């Protein structure tokens, strides 16, 4: 199956600053992908490169097996803050969508009524949650194979956020589309996504199916020991030491045999935070945290 998103050595430079560096990615079809990372990590840059709104400064990116620009009919994109035309009504947005998109699905567009949005209402008068729902409807009615959403729930209150994710998941179950959504909050992606990309400081720190990542990462706690004394298959993500104790967060495919360790499983949040921490140089004021780079 063709990957929905494939990047090879992808990079983007603004002036002298690299917003995205050495990005290698392969996202298989049929997933809901969470792109997580702090603000300014390069999430929007990666998404904009994927939809052809930006051109790479290095490397290449393919979407649904072709260059980003060539796939516009099959890719839906909702930019940050759910952009809509403030002075157009909800009905006007739908009319415009139907005119501009050959594969427009009127049945999907009718979800607007189900959501209780007034078709005559101007988009500028909608609440943040309603505007997000309008933008999602436009993205879904296009019947894309891949829907890309940049921070779709960041501006929403918890209830609107929940409703938005419920609707999105329902659409995924119905339409069998792949989704890439970015967020700076792990809790947004924890339930709704099954694939995660952690982007920190313009680099992809880790990516993969969430189940697989959680099954191969562990926290080891035990008597003090150096990272170099761990077995070769145990890749250290973070480590911290006190005089008597060491704690490692490791990635390994193999069973952990050493009985000296207390082994604990991680939550997705632990895992993401560990990869975020591992990209930051050790802070002088936190000498106990030694970081493997």
């Amino acid at each position, binding site marked *: 199956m063709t990957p929905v998103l494939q990047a090879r050595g992808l990079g983007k430079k603004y002036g002298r600053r690299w917003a995205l560096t050495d990005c290698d990615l392969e996202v298989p079809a049929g997933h809901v992908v969470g792109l997580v990372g702090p603000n300014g990590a390069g999430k929007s840059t990666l998404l904009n490169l994927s939809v052809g709104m930006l051109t790479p400064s290095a490397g290449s990116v393919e979407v649904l097996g072709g260059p980003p620009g060539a796939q516009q009919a099959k890719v839906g994109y909702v930019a940050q803050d759910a952009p809509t035309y403030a002075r157009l009504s909800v009905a006007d947005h739908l009319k415009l969508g139907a005119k501009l998109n050959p594969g427009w699905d009127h049945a999907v567009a009718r979800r607007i009524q189900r959501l209780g949005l007034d078709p005559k209402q101007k988009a500028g008068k909608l609440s943040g949650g309603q505007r997000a729902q309008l933008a999602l409807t436009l993205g879904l009615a296009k019947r894309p194979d891949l829907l890309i959403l940049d921070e779709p729930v960041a501006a929403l209150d918890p209830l609107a956020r929940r409703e938005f994710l419920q609707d999105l*998941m329902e659409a995924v179950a119905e339409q069998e589309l792949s989704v890439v959504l970015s967020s700076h909050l792990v809790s947004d992606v924890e*339930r709704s996504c099954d694939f995660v990309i952690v982007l920190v400081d313009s680099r992809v720190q880790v990516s993969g199916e969430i*189940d697989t990542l959680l099954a191969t990462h562990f926290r080891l706690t035990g008597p003090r020991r150096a990272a170099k004394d761990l077995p070769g298959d145990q890749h250290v993500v973070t480590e911290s030491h006190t005089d008597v104790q060491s704690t490692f967060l490791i990635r390994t495919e193999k069973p952990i045999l050493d009985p000296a360790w207390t082994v604990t499983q991680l939550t997705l949040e632990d895992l993401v935070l560990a990869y975020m921490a591992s990209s930051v140089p050790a802070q002088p004021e936190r000498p106990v945290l030694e970081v493997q780079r």
Partner: protein
Amino acid sequence: MNGVWLMIEFHLDGRSGVSPYQQIVQQVRNALRLGLLRKGDQLPTVKDVVAALAINPNTVLKAYRELEHEGLVQARPGRGTFVTRTLTDNTLAAHGPLRQDLRRWLAKARKAGLDDESIEALFLTTFRSAALEDLA
């Protein structure tokens, strides 16, 4: 809704540390054990579950596949997933009296001054050590 509304609803505990798909599997097994679900009953559709819980459809599919693998349910394409076997067997009748005994025991434990946490701990340690003895 008429008689069809005998369906169960799933709930997710975000703090349990048990993955969402396992929670769904457990909740179906529990419903089967308690007789809430019987042979022929339909499980909620994947679409209904994801719409209610805002979880990934693959999570639900994975849970249903595992239940199917265990021979508890069967997916009928285009119609839904149906219960093929119950887990109640003949023990359901014994639940009432056992619950009575347990209630009496709980009252006794409270009277002796145990709080909720101590009661749970006592039950679990006894349960585990008894299970170990049974194995031995």
